[in-house]
Every structure is written in C-alpha cells, then in structure tokens.
C-alpha cells in the first residue's frame, strides 16, 4: 500500500513558529507536515534547538520530568554526548541517581572532550554522594577543577555530619564566576545557620528556598513535597512568632490568623483585645469593630473590654450594624463585671445601650436590673410627658437635687427631643401644650444642683427659641410661662442677665414689644446647627436688650426698696447714644418711682438717673432729642413728661438760655401744658415770657414758625 503523503507546511510558517518560541507547536507541526523547501537535516537542526530550549525552560521552572522527556526526544534526533551530559544532570535533579551514574560513567570514557569528561566525572561523584556512597574515588577527584574538588569533599563531609570540615572545604572552594561564589556562600550560611542579607537574585532555587521559604522554580521531584511542607511550616511559624512578638510589644496590629495559629485559648482573648486596640490606633475602625463583634464572647470576660466597648460605641452607631450584638455584649458584661466597676461605668454602659436602639423600652428591663429607674423616668416620662402625676414632679425634683453626669446627659436629650418635636409639629397646639407641660416640670424643681446650670440654660434657650416661633397674641400664656421659668432660673443660678444666650435675650424683647422678633430664615433641614444650636435670627440689637434688663432690675430694686436702685444703669453709661430707647427708659423709671411713691423727690430721682448714666442736659444730642421723646411720652403719661420738662427748665444755666434748643424746650413745655389743660403756674408764665423775650431779641429763623404760632395762641 502506498504510504500516505504528508501534507506540506510552508517554510516561512515553520520558521516563524521557531522565532516566536512556540516550540510545542513547532514540534507538533514537524511531526504532521512535510516542511517545504527544507531538508530533513535542516528541520532536525531546528527541532534540536527547539527541544533543547524546551528542556531548558522546563528545567528552569522546576519541571524536571518534562525536561527529561524533552531531552529523550532530543536524543532521538541528536544523541551527541553533550545532550547525554544534559540528561545526566536532569537525572540527578530528579533523583534518579542510578541511571545518572550509568550514563555519567559512559560519558567519562569519551575521548577527546576533556571538558565533557570533567563534567561527567563531577556529576558522577556527586550522584554517588547522594546515594550515600561516601567513598570518593580520589583519582577521579583530581581530574576536576579544584573549586569543584573542594566542593565534593565539603559535601561529603557535610553529608557525614561534619559541618566544621564541610565549611572548611567550602571556604577553599573558590569558583571564579560570581554567581557560583554566591551559591557557595549561601550554602555556608545555610549550614552554619548564620544570618545572611538575602539579596541574591540568581542563586539556585533550592538554596533560596532553604534560606527564605521562597518556592519559585523549585525542582518538582518526588521528595520535594514533604520538604516544602516542612520548610513552609517552619517559616510560617517563625513569621507568626515574629508577628506575635510585635503584637506583644504593641508595635502594630496583626491578622487574626496569626493570633489563632500561635496561642492557647487563655491568651487568645487577651491578644485579640490588644490587637483591637492597635487597630483603633491605626484608624482601622471597621476591622476593629468586626473583630470585636466576632470575638465578643471571649472579650466579655476581660474587665477592660468595658472601656473598649465605650470607645467603639459611636462607630457601632455610625455603622448601623451589629447594634443588637453590642447590646447583648453590654448585658453580658454587666452580668459578669457589675460588682467590679464604678457606678459611672454602669451608667455609661446603660446609656450606650440606649444609643444603640431606636426602641429605648427594650433596654428598660436591663436598666431596672441595675436599679436605674431614674433613667427610665428621664427617657420616658420626661420625654413624652404623658400621665403626669404629682409624684413625677417629686421624682424629677430628686433627680435634679443630686448631680450625676448620666442624669445631665439624659436631661440634654430632652432638649434634643424638643427640637425634633418642633420639626414635626411646628407652631401646633400640640407643641405649645408640650412645652407648657415641660415648663411646669421645671417650675416645680426646688433646688437644682448648680452643675446642671449649663444644661438647664441650654434647654431654656431651646424653649425660648421654639416659643418665639408662635404668634405672641395667640400664645401669650406660653410666652409668659417661658418668661416665668427663665426668670426663676436666672434668680436660682444667679445668672448675669447680660450673659444670657441670644434666644433668651430675644424672648425678653419679644415680650416687651408684644410680638415675636424672631425672623424666618431659610435653613437647610437637617443641618448640624439645627440640632445643636437654637440660635435664631432676631430683629433686635444688644443695647436694646441691655437697656430693657437694666430697666427691669432697676424697677425690681425700686419695688423692693433696695438702696442705689439705679445701679444697673451704670453698665449703660457709655452706650446711651446708640439707642433712642434710652429716653423711654428714663421716663419709665421715673414713672415707676412715682407709681410706688418712692421716698425721694422726683427731681432727685431724675438727677440720680442722669448721673448714673453719666449724662447731662447740657449734652447737645440729649438736648436735641429728649424734647421730642418727652412730648411723645406725654401720650403715655403727661405727668411724667411735665416732670421732666420742669426739671430740665429749672436746671438750665443762664448762659444756655439764649440758645435755640432752650427755646425748643420752652415751646414744648408751654404747648403741653396748654394741650392737656394743666395749671398755668408760675413756671408756665416765666417760660412763656422767656420764649417771647428771647425770640424777639434773637430772631432765630428756626424758631420763627413756633413764635408766630405761640403768638396766636397765647397773646
């Protein structure tokens, strides 16, 4: 039968496979196809090189079995001694020493290739050692280069456990090539277990592996599996130990596997605890939290974990995860450690539990267990203000008598609750009634501890702000209740009224003006500012408030017959020019003094007020403005207006009497008397005479119209 003809492959294609190093495909194509325009020898040469490269590549990556297969295929094409020598080497690497010895012996008798023979001898001697045949043929030994000779002797000594002798021989083996020198040095380090700076990139894979555990390109032989396992375990253990030491020294956190691989059960919890501490210090909050939750059953046994939990609380809150587990932890921790920790610590843990749930009632059983019923009161009764009884007021009273930071914290939650409530029920009756009820609670408090002052005034500030969202006329009672409670607490805590918050000051002004001065400002719905600050925008200035307060206190002093009643006015003495309300202040105070029949003549009172404010009627601004304000005030109280006029006119010095402003004062006075049909007494007559006399003499243009009018009226 005729042999089937093989298909043909173009030479170009065949060579391109070789150039692209696609040797497997090249070999396969050579078997299947006849290569065009190439003789068999040419093809064989290409194939030899392909097989050689393949074998080399396989050897370099440690696949010795593959390398041998390729060499065997190569030997079918080229059974030259060099290829056989290569096979001897591969056989040694794959630990097939018997075949290696046989082939090496065959090559040792080759003539006229000294280099090949020396290599064969060297491999032969080596293979013998690896078969535990330590009798070295010294004649053969002398035929190889001295560096290799010393190496053989050294290896023999080492294999017979004489490390010292081995090292001596290795020291004497001084190959020329740098990489061979480095390999020898590496062997010496491995044998002497000395530290070596491992920087050598090109040392043999086995040496690198023994030194560092790096398995790259390690020859895949039958013994290597167990060795890999042993050495990897040793290195892993050493690394683990090093990391554990770093953890013990608090250098840095480690992975949980390191802890679990190294320690016994007793120490594991403590190591995990410290590891979490380090993670937190390294700002790895998520990892810390994950570990905490995962190992909470171990951590809970440590008293210190109570601190850790408190540190982690806001991360748990932020993450919105594991809150249930954290609450479980708190419950277990308290069960185990409640007799060891302070009352504050227990408080804080319970308050933290509240923070972790939107259903505070679920924490109540735990709270009750540790006798913190007052927490329940502050969380429930004070927040919702339902079914209030007299005993609730008593309870609140007792709570505020004694200071505890936990109570203070819960009290502040009421403030936040009011803010949230106002978002949902802005300006509604519900809100107004709620605030009203809460104020009643505050009113009933007899002796709040001074340390609650800051929190209470923040609450009052919130109340003041919320109240001013309501229309004054519709919620007058609410405004007045708020004012009452604020005044009560100002007195109780001896607050300086000038140091109150803007919202509180504004409330005083709103009540004085009988309308809310709070301005509606567009704010983002959920700004942090909304949550923590109630400072609104108000239409008033500080001086107006200060005048109002000074007046308020001065009036209180008058009513209580306190000496130096007008002392509060001293604070205003350099600021009266800023505000026209000052004039009203003067007249309101005088009016009050007259009303309560203050035991001083009105002239003295006026003098006292003016001197306290450090102003004089000779002051130009006062002179010009006061007369207008007095005439305006006459509508409120004509008597007071007349008293001011009388005082002013009787106390003006002679030299000022020829001036325009004096004529304005006279004009104001005489027309008021006339308008209100008051008695035209001696002062009136003198004032009228003065007016005409001076104007007729001085002929002031600005007074001319007044003159003509008065002439018509009074002459």
């Amino acid at each position, binding site marked *: 039968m005729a042999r089937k003809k093989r298909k043909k492959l173009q030479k170009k294609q065949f060579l391109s496979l070789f150039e692209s190093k696609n040797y497997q495909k090249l070999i396969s194509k050579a078997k299947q196809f006849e290569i065009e325009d190439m003789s068999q020898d040419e093809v064989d040469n290409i194939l030899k090189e392909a097989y050689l490269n393949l074998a080399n590549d396989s050897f370099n990556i440690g696949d010795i079995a593959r390398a041998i297969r390729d060499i065997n295929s190569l030997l079918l094409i080229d059974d030259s001694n060099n290829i056989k020598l290569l096979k001897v*080497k591969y056989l*040694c*690497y794959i*630990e097939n020493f018997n075949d290696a010895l046989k082939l090496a012996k065959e090559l040792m008798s080759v003539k006229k290739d000294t280099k090949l023979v020396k*290599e064969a001898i060297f*491999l032969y001697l*080596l293979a013998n050692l690896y078969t535990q045949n330590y009798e070295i043929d010294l004649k053969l030994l002398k035929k190889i280069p001295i*560096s290799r000779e010393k*190496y053989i002797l050294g290896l023999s000594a*080492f*294999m017979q456990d004489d490390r010292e002798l081995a090292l001596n021989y290795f020291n004497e083996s001084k*190959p020329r*090539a740098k*990489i*061979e020198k480095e*390999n020898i040095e*590496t*062997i010496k380090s*491995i*044998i002497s*277990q000395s530290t070596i700076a491992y920087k050598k990139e090109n040392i*043999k894979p*086995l*040496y690198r592996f*023994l*030194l560092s555990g790096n398995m790259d390109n390690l*020859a895949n*032989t039958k*013994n*290597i599996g167990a*060795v890999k396992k*042993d*050495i990897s375990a*040793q290195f892993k*253990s*050493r690394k683990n*130990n*090093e990391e554990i*030491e770093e953890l*013990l020294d*608090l250098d840095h956190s480690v992975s949980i596997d390191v802890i679990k691989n190294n320690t016994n059960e007793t*120490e594991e919890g*403590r*190591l995990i605890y*410290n590891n979490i*501490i380090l993670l937190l210090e390294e700002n790895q909050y998520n990892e810390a939290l994950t570990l905490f939750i995962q190992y909470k059953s171990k951590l809970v046994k440590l*008293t*210190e974990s109570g*601190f*850790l939990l*408190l*540190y982690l609380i806001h991360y748990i809150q932020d993450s919105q995860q594991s809150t249930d587990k954290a609450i479980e932890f708190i419950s277990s921790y308290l069960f185990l450690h409640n*007799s*060891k*920790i*302070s009352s*504050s610590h227990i408080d*804080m843990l319970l308050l933290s539990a509240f923070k972790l749930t939107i259903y505070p009632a679920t924490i109540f059983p735990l709270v009750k267990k540790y006798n913190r019923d007052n927490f329940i009161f502050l969380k429930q009764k004070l927040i919702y203000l339902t079914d209030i009884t007299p005993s609730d007021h008593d309870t609140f009273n007792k709570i505020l008598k004694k200071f*505890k*930071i936990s109570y203070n914290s819960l009290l502040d939650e009421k403030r936040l609750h009011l803010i949230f409530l106002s978002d949902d029920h802005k300006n509604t009756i519900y809100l107004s009634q709620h605030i009203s009820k809460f104020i009643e609670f505050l009113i009933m408090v007899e002796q709040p501890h001074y340390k609650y002052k800051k929190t209470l005034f923040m609450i009052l500030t919130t109340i003041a702000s919320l109240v001013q969202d309501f229309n004054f006329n519709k919620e007058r009672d609410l405004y007045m209740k708020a004012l009452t409670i604020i005044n009560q607490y100002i007195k109780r805590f001896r607050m300086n009224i000038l140091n109150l918050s803007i919202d509180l000051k504004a409330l005083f002004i709103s009540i004085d003006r009988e309308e809310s001065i709070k301005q509606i400002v567009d704010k983002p719905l959920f700004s942090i500012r909304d949550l923590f600050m109630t400072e609104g925008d108000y239409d008033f200035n500080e001086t107006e408030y200060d005048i109002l307060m000074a007046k308020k206190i001065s009036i209180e002093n008058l009513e209580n017959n306190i000496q130096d009643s007008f002392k509060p006015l001293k604070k205003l003495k350099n600021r009266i020019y800023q505000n026209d309300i000052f004039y009203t202040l003067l007249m309101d105070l005088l009016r009050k003094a007259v009303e309560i029949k203050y035991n001083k003549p009105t002239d003295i009172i006026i003098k006292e007020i003016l001197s306290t404010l450090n102003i004089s009627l000779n002051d130009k601004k006062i002179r010009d403005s006061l007369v207008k304000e007095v005439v305006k005030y006459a509508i409120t109280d004509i008597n007071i207006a007349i008293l001011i006029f009388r005082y002013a006119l009787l106390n003006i010095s002679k030299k000022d009497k020829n001036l325009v402003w004096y004529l304005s004062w006279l004009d104001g006075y005489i027309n008021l008397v006339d308008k209100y049909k008051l008695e035209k007494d001696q002062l009136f007559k003198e004032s009228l005479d003065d007016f005409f006399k001076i104007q007729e003499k001085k002929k002031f243009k600005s007074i001319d119209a007044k003159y003509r009018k008065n002439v018509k009226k009074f002459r």
Partner: protein
Amino acid sequence: MIKKSPYIILGLEDNFEFKDIKKAYRKLIREFSPENHPKKFAEISDAYDILTDEEYFWNGTITNLYYIDIQLDIESNKDIDNSRHLKNIFEVPFNI
C-alpha cells in the same frame, strides 16, 4: 492615646470587687510615694481616678484605649535549620 490598663496598674486580679480598688490604691501609694517615685505615683493616681472618679471616667473613656499586659512564651527567633535538606535534594552551586 494608648495607656496601660488601670486594673493592671493597681494589681487587680480577675476576682476583685469595686471596694478593692481603693485598698489596692492605698497600698500602692504607700509603696510608691510621690517624692521618691513621682512617675509611678502619677500612674497609680491616674489609674485610680479613671476607675473611681465620675468626671475623670467620662472624660477619659472616649479618648483613651487601655492595653493589657500579656506574658507569653514564644519560640522567638528560633533559627530554622534547613540544612539537612541539602543532603536529600540535589543541587549544585556551579553552572553545569
């Protein structure tokens, strides 16, 4: 800030009660007076305050982390003797 556990500073073992804290504190400050051992005294006082003073506790809790002293025997820096594998696995330091 990482500080040593106040329980460890005061020598409080696992089964103590809250009232033992003061006893432990008093015992230690007798031993470590402020004149002779100012740093140690400060450490002991700080630990005592953390555990017993309400304000100190609340202020310190969310800023401080407390580590535990751990005694553990580690086979550290044990030299790895892998040289025995040189006997079993063929390798040659020369280019052949």
